[in-house]
């Protein structure tokens, strides 16, 4: 009951950040940004450097950060706390616990283990211990199933793998999607248009794991062009990256196509033509930005989709990324591992959305002036 109240309180706080006045946003945002910089650099460099970095970050943020970024930060920290809290609740509600295995564990042994790993029977108590670890001790905690390793030690080698795969997939989806969509939009109802939209439909309707499994059968088992699974070379990256990219590429293609068709009917395109500009110039200078705007605003959700897709695709192709740990952690009820990976995913999605916001405000001056 009290947990439910806490959850509601968290949600209310989160909603309240939207109405935060500009000056408060600036101060609060800078402080919270300093806190994040401090916690993260503590992992890497220790307490002294972290304090220095935090102070520096606070000053920098206060003076130079655009309001857009600070508003995100003010939202970000309560959202992160809420994420940890609700994930904890969910894990505790799920049947089983980290110490339940085939052989029955005696209550005394279980109690000892719970004390050793800091996993009490009560979810709120665990949340308290976890937050203390994160903020005061600067660790993501010990893994329960992988003996003697902390969660950060597990994630550290997996993180670059997932980032490489995710970024490649994202770049592929943008390049493929934009090319198809722009081409189709410019030659509406041509053969090229129909072909690319059929491809897009194909991409939207097949989820990544079906695409991945299909590709595996065709390109590895039948044709033998690519390794079935594993990691280590560029050739290993091809199929998982495409499997992750295609569904998003399909959506981007549709957005770019309709964006292009819409922009080309705008009055300012007629003006550009009336100036005597060549058609290629009209498209590149006048139509392109308007076409990119809906695509860029989709990149936030696209990044999230690629990350969640990567849980499955990493397992399917035996890619040693964070998705593996997330899935293993969830199956083993290894609470700290699940929370650790969730925090990292969350951070990446937020970071990406921030980049998207910045790109968006660069693309559309109306957005820029509206939040000054």
């Amino acid at each position, binding site marked *: 009951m009290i947990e439910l109240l806490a959850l509601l309180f968290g949600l209310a706080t989160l909603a309240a950040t939207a109405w935060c006045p500009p000056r408060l946003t600036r101060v609060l945002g800078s402080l919270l940004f300093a806190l994040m910089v401090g916690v993260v650099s503590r992992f890497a460099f220790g307490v002294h450097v972290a304090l220095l970095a935090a102070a520096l970050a606070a000053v920098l943020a206060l003076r130079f950060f655009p309001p857009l970024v600070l508003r995100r930060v003010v939202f970000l920290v309560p959202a992160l706390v809420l994420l940890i809290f609700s994930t904890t609740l969910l894990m505790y509600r799920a049947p089983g616990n980290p110490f339940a295995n085939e052989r029955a564990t005696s209550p005394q042994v279980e109690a000892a283990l719970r004390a050793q790993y800091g996993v009490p029977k009560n979810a709120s108590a665990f949340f308290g211990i976890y937050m203390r670890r994160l903020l005061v001790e600067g660790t993501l905690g010990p893994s329960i199933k992988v003996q003697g390793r902390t969660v950060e030690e597990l994630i550290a080698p997996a993180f670059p793998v997932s980032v490489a795969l995710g970024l490649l997939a994202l770049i592929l989806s943008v390049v493929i999607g934009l090319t198809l969509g722009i081409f189709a939009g410019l030659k509406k109802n041509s053969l090229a248009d129909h072909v690319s939209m059929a491809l897009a439909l194909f991409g939207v309707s097949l989820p990544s794991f079906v695409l991945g499994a299909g590709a595996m059968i065709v390109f590895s088992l039948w044709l033998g062009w690519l390794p079935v699974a594993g990691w280590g070379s560029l050739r290993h990256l091809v199929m998982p990256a495409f499997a992750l990219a295609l569904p998003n590429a399909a959506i981007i293609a549709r957005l770019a196509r309709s964006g292009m068709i819409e922009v080309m009917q705008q*009055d300012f395109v*007629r003006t550009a033509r*009336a*100036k*005597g*500009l060549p058609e290629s110039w009209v498209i590149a*200078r*006048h139509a392109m*930005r308007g076409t990119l705007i809906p695509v860029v605003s989709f990149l936030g959700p696209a990044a999230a989709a690629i990350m969640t897709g990567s849980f499955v695709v990493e397992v399917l192709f035996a890619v040693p990324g964070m998705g593996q740990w997330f899935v293993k952690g969830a199956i083993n009820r290894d609470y700290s591992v699940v929370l650790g990976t969730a925090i990292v995913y969350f951070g990446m999605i937020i970071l990406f959305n921030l980049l998207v916001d910045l790109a968006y405000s660069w693309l*559309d001056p109306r957005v820029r002036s509206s939040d000054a």
Partner: protein
Amino acid sequence: MSGAEPQATPLLSIRGLRVDFATDAGSVPAVRGVDLDIGISETVALVGESGCGKSVTAMSVMRLLTGRISAGSIRFGNTELQSLSEPEMRRIRGAQIGMVFQEPMTSLNPVLTIGKQIEEVLTLHQRLTSSAARAHAVELLKRVGIPSAERRASQYPHELSGGMKQRVMIAMAISCRPKLLIADEPTTALDVTIQAQIMDLLGSLQQELGMAVLLITHDLGVVAHFAERVAVMYAGKIVEQGAVRDIFKRAAHPYTRALLAALPDPLRTAARLEAIPGRVPLPRMLPAGCAFCARCKHVFEPCPGVLPELFPIAPGHSAACFLHDPRRAPSNVPCQ
């Protein structure tokens, strides 16, 4: 200025222009045989209600129609525009013929600064360097009456009012000192007070640059102080043509008279005397004869079945109405 007589070698000469749009519902004859001359430095008004084919005529001159011209010739100076290649036509657009559109709100690109949008015409047609183009763009903005032009040049369209945007459009259209400026309802979307300012600006620019202006409007009131000649268009055809005095003092076509009667009269208190009843017929549903039949008070026996040609009324003044056909007109011509 002589006014009434078109000059010997007109700057723009449109002959027998026909435009048909192919649509799902069949062919739409938007322009049905338009003849129009514009002399060097002459101001001509093309007047008619919405849907009469004025914009289509203008876009035909620019060769920017979505459809195709089905027949006719458009000569600009000594060149037939329709025989030009696309790159040759591009050297005319924006350089020799400038155009201002009805909707200043949407006619400027929202994501480029207004300075950039003017500069690109100059770098394109006059091969100016970017700094020279910038300086010239600021000059142009000053010329069209935009205060603090340097600052405005680096602003985006949404930071300007509608009237300011139309001034920017005008600056852009005259930037290469065109021989002809086509202004397609330049004040329709603006407040009444701003409308007069924009028309004044167009008038003074016309004097200064000596360019010819084709002013397209549905409002005869705008025309009186501005144009030398007036062509009245109805359902894809010119129905009356003449010097501005002829049109205002001796209007011959019932449609022109109806337009005049619909003007607010400053001497009377009633703002609008009589709006013309009915609507412009859709191009797909035109009668065989005069298209104004359905709304005309003077219909008699030839009107529904026979297309009236332009009958001369006075030198430089003609009207496409059987009331002025010496062979057909009934004795009791209800003129004036």
